C-alpha cells in the first residue's frame, strides 16, 4: 500500500507545484509557432505562390519543358540506383556489426558516419580528383572512353557517398536490440540462411528498414552540394531537379525554378507524412 501512496504523490506533485505559470506556456508555444511559421511555412508558401505567379498554364508548361523532364528523369534514375544499393549495403553492414565480433568494429561504425560529417562539396570534389580529367584515373578513363565526372555515373557515385549511412544507421541499433536468438531458433528448426533472413530477420527489421529507405530516398533526390560539383550543369543531360532549380533561377526563369522547387517541396511533405506514419506504426508495436 505504501508504494501506491508514494507514486500518487510523485505524479501529483509536478502538476500542482512545479507547473509553469500560464504566461510562460503561452509565450513558449507562441514563439515556437511563430518561428516555425516564419522559417518553414512561409518559405514553403512562397515557393507555391511564385510557382503559380503566372497561372496554371505557365506552371504546367514549365514543368513539361524537356529540360525539366530530363532533370526529373535523372533524379528518379539516381534514386532508383542509389536507394537499392544503399539498402543492400545498410543491411549487410548492420548484419556484420550487430552479429559478428571482429577487430576494428568500432572504427567501422565510426567510418560509416563519415558522410554525415564531411561537407557534401568535399565529397563531390573527391570524385573529381579521382575520376576527373586531371585526376588519378583521368588518363586511363579517357583512353578507354569512359565518362564518370560531368556525367551520370559521377552523379550516382556522389549521391551514393552522401546517402550510404542512412539505412545502416537505422538498422545497427535495431538489430543489436533484437539480438540473434530468433535467427538461431529458425536455423535449429531447419530453415536455410535465406529462409531465416526473409522470414525472421526481415519482418523484424522492416519498419526500421523502411524508415531508413525513406530518409535515404529523400536525400538522394534532394542532394545538391556533392552532385553540383560532379555534374557540370549540362542542361537536359546532367542536371538533377535540385540543380535545375538553381540553373533556372540564375537565368531569371522564376516560374520554372519555383515550379521545379514545388516538386521537391511536395516530395519533402510526402516524406514527412510517411515518416510520421512509420513512427506511429513503430510506437504501436512497442
Amino acid at each position, binding site marked *: 500500500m505504501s508504494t501506491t501512496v508514494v507514486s500518487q504523490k510523485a505524479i501529483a506533485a509536478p502538476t500542482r507545484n512545479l507547473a509553469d505559470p500560464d504566461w510562460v506556456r503561452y509565450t513558449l508555444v507562441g514563439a515556437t509557432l511563430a518561428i516555425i511559421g516564419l522559417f518553414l511555412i512561409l518559405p514553403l508558401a512562397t515557393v507555391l505562390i511564385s510557382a503559380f505567379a503566372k497561372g496554371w498554364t505557365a506552371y504546367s508548361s514549365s514543368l513539361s519543358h524537356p529540360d525539366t523532364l530530363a532533370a526529373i528523369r535523372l533524379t528518379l534514375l539516381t534514386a532508383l540506383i542509389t536507394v537499392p544499393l544503399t539498402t543492400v549495403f545498410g543491411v549487410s553492414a548492420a548484419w556484420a556489426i550487430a552479429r559478428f565480433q571482429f577487430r576494428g568494429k568500432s572504427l567501422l561504425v565510426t567510418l560509416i558516419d563519415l558522410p554525415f560529417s564531411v561537407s557534401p562539396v568535399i565529397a563531390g570534389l573527391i570524385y573529381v580528383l579521382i575520376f576527373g580529367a586531371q585526376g588519378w584515373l583521368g588518363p586511363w578513363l579517357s583512353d578507354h572512353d569512359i565518362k564518370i565526372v560531368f556525367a551520370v555515373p559521377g552523379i550516382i557515385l556522389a549521391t551514393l557517398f552522401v546517402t550510404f549511412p542512412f539505412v545502416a544507421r537505422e538498422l545497427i541499433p535495431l538489430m543489436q536490440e533484437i539480438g540473434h536468438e*530468433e535467427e*538461431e*531458433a529458425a*536455423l*535449429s*528448426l*531447419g*530453415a536455410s540462411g535465406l529462409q531465416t533472413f526473409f*522470414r525472421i530477420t526481415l519482418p523484424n527489421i522492416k519498419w526500421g528498414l523502411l524508415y531508413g529507405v525513406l530518409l535515404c530516398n529523400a536525400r538522394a533526390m534532394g542532394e545538391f552540394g556533392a552532385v553540383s560539383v560532379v555534374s557540370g550543369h549540362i542542361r537536359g543531360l546532367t542536371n538533377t531537379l535540385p540543380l535545375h532549380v538553381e540553373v533556372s533561377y540564375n537565368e531569371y526563369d522564376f516560374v520554372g525554378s519555383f515550379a521545379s522547387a514545388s516538386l521537391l517541396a511536395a516530395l519533402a511533405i510526402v516524406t514527412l507524412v510517411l515518416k510520421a506514419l512509420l513512427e506511429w506504426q513503430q510506437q504501436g508495436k512497442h
Partner: protein
Amino acid sequence: MSITLQHISKHFGAFSALDDINLDIPEGELVALLGPSGCGKTTLLRIIAGLEHADEGQVFLKGDDVTRKPVKNRQIGFVFQHYALFRHMTVFDNIAFGLRVKPRKERPSESQIREKVHALLNLVQLDWLHDRFPDQLSGGQRQRIALARALAVEPSVLLLDEPFGALDASVRKDLRLWLRHLHHELNVTSIFVTHDQEEAMEVASQIVVLNHGKIEQKGTPSEIYDHPGSDFVSRFIGQTNVFHLKQEDNAWLQTAGIALDDPQGIIVHVRPHHIAVEKAADPANAPVYLHDWQHLGGTIRLELNRPGVNGSAATLYAEMPNEQFKELALQKGDRVALKIKHAHWFN
C-alpha cells in the same frame, strides 16, 4: 539418439570455457548439465546443437560425426532460455515454422501441418492460445510454446537452455514435473542446462556436474548426492558442513565419532541430516550448544555452535524430523552431544 562428446575444448580469448570434455549420453536419457554460472554448461549445449563450434574435439549423434554439420542438419530441437519465439508470428505459425521451411518434397500439406500443430498444442495443453502473439502470453505459456515448436520437427535430441530460469517459482515447480512426465511420454534424448541443483535432482535421470569447463562428476541424482566425487560436488549439491581437521577440533570431533588420525583426508563434509543430536548427558564436558533453530516444514534445522580457535564460535548445521525435535524438547543454549553418522572425506 545417443550423444557422444570427445575431447571438446573451447576458448574465448584467453578464457578456457571448456577443457577436454568427454561424455556419453545413452539414448532416451534426461540429462542435466549442472554447474555455477560461467562453468561452460551453456557453451557445451550450444556446441552439441551446432550453434557454436568447438576449437577441438568431436560431437557424435547416434555414432555419426556431426562436428562439421550445420545446426539445420543435426535434427535437434533447441529451447532457448528466453524462448526466442518469433514475435511477428502467431503461436500457430511459430509451431508450424519448422514444417513450412522444409524442402518442397518433404513438406507436409497445409492440412497435415494444421493437424500436427493442433496435436502439439494439445500436448502442451495450450490449444486455446493458437491465434495469440508471443507478447500476449505469460512466461510459462511461452516456455511451453517454445517446446512445442522444437518438437514439431520431431527432433531426435531435445536441448533446453535454462528452461525454467526466467519463470516464477510456483510456475517453475509445475513445469519441472510436467517436463519430466513429458519426457517419459516422448522418450526423446534430452539435455537441459541449469544452475539450480534442486531442479537437476528433481527432473533429471542423469546429472553432469560441470565446474571451470571440466566435468566434475556424472551420475544419477542419488549417486551424486550420496557419493559426491569431489569437494566441489559435495558443496554444490545440497547442504553440507565442511570441517577442516585441526588439532583444536580434535576433542569434540572424537566425541562425535570421528578420529583425527583417520587416514582418509583432512577435509570432512557432513550433511546436516547425517548429524544425530541428543541432549548432553554430561553438560560440563559437552562443548557444543544449540544457538538457534529454524522451521523448514517437515524438518527442523538446528544451528549449533562449537567453540573454535581463540574463543571464537563456529556454526554447524544439523537437521532432524519435526517430531523428533519436539520429543527432545531442547532449549536455546542447551548443551548437546553429537553423533556423526556418515561423512565424506576429501584431500
